[in-house]
């Protein structure tokens, strides 16, 4: 039991560090975009970062409280919820990438230039979209609960 407590605590600390690093990167990217005059894209990033920060604070608070009260950070239901949210985010992510491709083609035809600066930015938009979808699906399945 003691070993579980320490491994759970280490896990919460690890997740907190990774979350802070990822969110700091998003915040820096938002500021860079705004400084470069891309206010709408920067603003959108600020909103997305804000939503992710709220999710992260709630998730980390829950995990910390579970560890403190001696409950496992993760059990069979939370694992099932996470797996289902991941699979749905992956499936929806395929359509998201397809939509980004269409958006790129349409914008290039319409404005004569791609909306993405380079392929890495398009890839970043794809990954960010999947991450946001994972968060939404995770929250939905956690609320719904009826996981088979």
């Amino acid at each position: 039991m003691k070993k579980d407590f320490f491994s759970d605590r280490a896990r919460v600390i690890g997740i907190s560090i990774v979350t802070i690093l990822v969110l700091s990167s998003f915040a820096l990217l938002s500021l860079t975009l705004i400084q470069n005059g891309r206010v709408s894209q920067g603003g959108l990033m600020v909103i997305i970062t804000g939503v992710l920060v709220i999710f992260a604070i709630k998730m980390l608070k829950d995990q910390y409280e579970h560890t403190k009260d001696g409950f496992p950070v993760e059990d069979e239901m939370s694992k099932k919820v996470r797996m289902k949210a991941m699979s749905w985010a992956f499936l929806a992510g395929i359509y998201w990438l397809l939509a980004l491709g269409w958006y790129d083609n349409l914008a290039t035809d319409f404005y004569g230039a791609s909306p993405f600066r380079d392929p890495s930015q398009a890839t970043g938009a794809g990954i960010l979209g999947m991450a946001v979808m994972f968060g939404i699906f995770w929250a939905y399945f956690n609320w719904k609960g009826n996981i088979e």
Partner: protein
Amino acid sequence: MRTRIKELRARYNMTQEDLAHRVGVRRETIVFLEKGKYSPSLDLAYKVAREFKATIEEVFVFQEK
């Protein structure tokens, strides 16, 4: 899936937290189990039934969809 967990908890004077601690899951999982919104694994169903000194069939009532 309908369950008799709430009734059995009351009989054994056990809180949701107590049961969660005993079977090694989070309290939320017990809440969802009681509401019949989560179908547990055989392993968890067995552990819950064991806490109430009952069989799985006595705790979990299967309902055809």
